[in-house]
């Protein structure tokens, strides 16, 4: 089973979700711990669609990826294609964009600009910290199903 966490840019939400999945981050983590994640706020717009292999959970690859505005389209298309092509592919795509809040949205937008990167990163991390329970619930649901 491949776990595919996806959000807009793959830089914040899905990256944190993958870290939670791999127990690299605890649900009680603080803002500093979120900021210290290896791939937090690293992926940029040209990296959209390129998955990052965060690690393995019981032999299952855990990836995170940015799919731009296609977070609803991506799972539908992947499911249809595997069905139509009768491909034996076991994966679980998890849309992390449902856990976004205003702080993460603003932080994620600002962090793209030079000179505002630190401010954006901090805002995004604070926004994620606020919704960490929600992201963890999403991860648990993905792990369980």
């Amino acid at each position, binding site marked *: 089973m*491949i776990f595919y966490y996806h959000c807009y840019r793959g830089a914040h939400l899905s990256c944190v979700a993958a870290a939670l999945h791999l127990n690299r981050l605890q649900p009680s983590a603080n803002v500093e711990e979120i900021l210290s994640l290896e791939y937090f706020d690293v992926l940029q717009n040209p990296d*959209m669609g390129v*998955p990052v292999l965060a690690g393995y959970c019981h032999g299952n690859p855990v990836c995170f990826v940015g799919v731009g505005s*296609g977070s609803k*389209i*991506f799972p539908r298309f*992947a499911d249809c294609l595997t069905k139509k092509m*009768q*491909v034996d592919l076991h*994966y679980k795509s998890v849309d992390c964009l449902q856990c976004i809040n205003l702080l993460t949205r603003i932080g994620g937008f600002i962090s793209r600009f030079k000179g505002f990167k630190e401010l954006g990163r901090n805002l995004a991390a604070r926004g994620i910290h606020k919704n960490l329970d929600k992201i963890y619930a999403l991860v648990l649901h993905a792990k369980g199903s």
Partner: protein
Amino acid sequence: MVFSVGFETASTPVIKAVKNLFALGKVERGKVTYVETREVINTLMVIGGICSRKLGLTFVGRPLVSWGTQLAYKQIVALVEETEWKLKKREQKGQ
């Protein structure tokens, strides 16, 4: 098999993500050729599409899209021919 699918504005990352997912799952069965048709869209089709889908004005949008499609018809045909040619060439290489 030939399919048509809509991706709104997210075709590039979605296709890339699906290709990578298939590669990660080591899926060999059935090669998929993705053909981006957005390059032949003209202004009439864009305006018609917005009128029809976003604004719900199908009586304005549909004729505009039809007119735009007629104007872009040769380009669409050329795109299909180019794709068929590429597929044939690939098949010849594979044999």
